[in-house]
């Protein structure tokens, strides 16, 4: 069931002439993970803000085209977005991590028992139950990022948007996060994630959107990340890039396993 559809969406930030998004059309269904890849400034963050209904509503600017979200309004069954820098999304009003995660659900006006249930569940999912009594100001960058993600998930959104979620996480944390992304999709949520961690995407994404200067240049399965054009643009997986740089012929392998298989059959 389509949760989000963008039809010929163009977006201009306030007082700019060049569009940050140009004629982007995309549909995301529940249970699907869509990855946005592109160079910095290509429009991934902007697309997420538009999908989250924060642009142009809060950010300002001008939007053309149609953005259609089928959820149950804001919050529960609504849209949640995890911004790229956790320390800006902290409430600043919480004594403990538990309170911080509960900040969102409380703002939605849920009854206390529902809040507790969702918060405890989110803490467990992000593996930070042990931090529940800690003060947010004492957390490391990676710990804080987990707390913020928990805070968004605790609001039980139907569409979850992630902007560089692994930027502050260590490798173990990153692995946990990608597993979490897949489990969110398995629950029926629609997930869009903008990331530079291309090597993780073959196991995580159902579809990949290649953004360049605000346009959706190509949309396809993760195998896109082994295509010549993307490798040339610096958007291939490391394995594909190395294979190509070694002068070996197409098709380039996407993952180490693919490479081993190709190698054996040479």
């Amino acid at each position: 069931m389509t949760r989000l559809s963008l039809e010929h969406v163009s977006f201009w930030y306030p007082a700019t002439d060049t569009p940050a998004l140009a004629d982007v059309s995309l549909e995301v269904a529940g249970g699907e993970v869509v990855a946005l890849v592109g160079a910095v400034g290509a429009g991934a963050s902007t697309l997420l803000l538009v999908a989250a209904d924060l642009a142009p509503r809060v950010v300002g600017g001008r939007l053309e085209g149609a953005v259609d979200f089928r959820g149950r309004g804001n919050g529960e069954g609504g849209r949640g977005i995890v911004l790229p820098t956790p320390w800006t999304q902290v409430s600043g009003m919480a004594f403990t991590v538990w309170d911080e995660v509960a900040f969102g659900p409380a703002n939605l006006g849920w009854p206390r028992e529902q809040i507790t249930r969702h918060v405890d569940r989110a803490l467990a999912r992000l593996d930070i139950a042990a931090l529940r009594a800690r003060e947010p100001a004492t957390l490391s960058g990676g710990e804080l990022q987990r707390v913020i993600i928990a805070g968004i998930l605790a609001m039980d959104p139907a569409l979850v948007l992630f902007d560089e979620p692994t930027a502050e996480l260590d490798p173990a944390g990153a692995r946990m996060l990608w597993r979490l992304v897949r489990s969110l999709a398995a629950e029926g949520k629609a997930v869009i994630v903008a990331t530079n961690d291309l090597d993780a995407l073959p196991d995580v994404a159902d579809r990949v959107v290649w953004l360049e200067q605000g346009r959706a240049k190509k949309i396809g399965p993760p195998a896109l990340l082994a295509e010549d054009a993307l490798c040339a643009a610096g958007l291939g997986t490391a394995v594909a890039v190395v294979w190509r740089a070694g002068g070996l012929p197409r098709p380039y392998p996407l993952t180490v396993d693919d490479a081993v298989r190709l190698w054996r059959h040479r």
Partner: protein
Amino acid sequence: MTRLHPFTLLALAAALVALAWLLPAPWGAAGTLAVAAVLALFSGAGLTPGASPGSTGTGMSPGWRPGLVVLRTAVVTAAPFWLFLFILHDVPTTVALGLRITTMVASVVWLVAVLAPARLVEAMVAAGWRAGTAYLFAATLSAVPVLKARAQRIVEAQRCRGLSPRGGLGPRVRALRALALPLILSALHEVDERALALESRGLVPGARRTPLAPPPDRGAERAVRWALVALCVAALVWRLA
């Protein structure tokens, strides 16, 4: 003291300020200042000994130290006003206005020290205020500590690039100037980012927040608050008559 209901603390601060201006100077002002000073001294009272500063929500450690810090901050903040008053007015007016301003400053500094923004939000939300309004009040309250923390980070970054905040008057003034503009600009920039971030956390206009841990309100405290209001009204009436 931090365990008092947030509205009580607000009422105390507001009453002190109101009375400082309503009561005849200099004795009235001196009296309210004395009360404010006493309140400030006891800022740390009631905090569990050994509690970590963060867990109190106000960043204070138990004991007398917070009280002394509050007093010192109040005096330092009020000092420039005394200087200007002394230049502009005669002695009686200087004393009268100076005492009143110092009371105001002391009350505000005390309030910021003892009232945790999170508790204020909880109290307001429990009393029926909208989440956005409550957050606005609380953000105003935490504005100073937040700016202080931000200033510290900027100073650290500047020090790591070779700027010395110490030394004679010249370097200190330069350092201050190097701090002022970035502080304001980054604070303004953060307001933008905050608005976006808080919306993403559900703090939308009109949101009705569920109180998670509403501070308990005792009958005695409510009585005290009404008494303070009555006192201020009486003072106003008395002055007008």
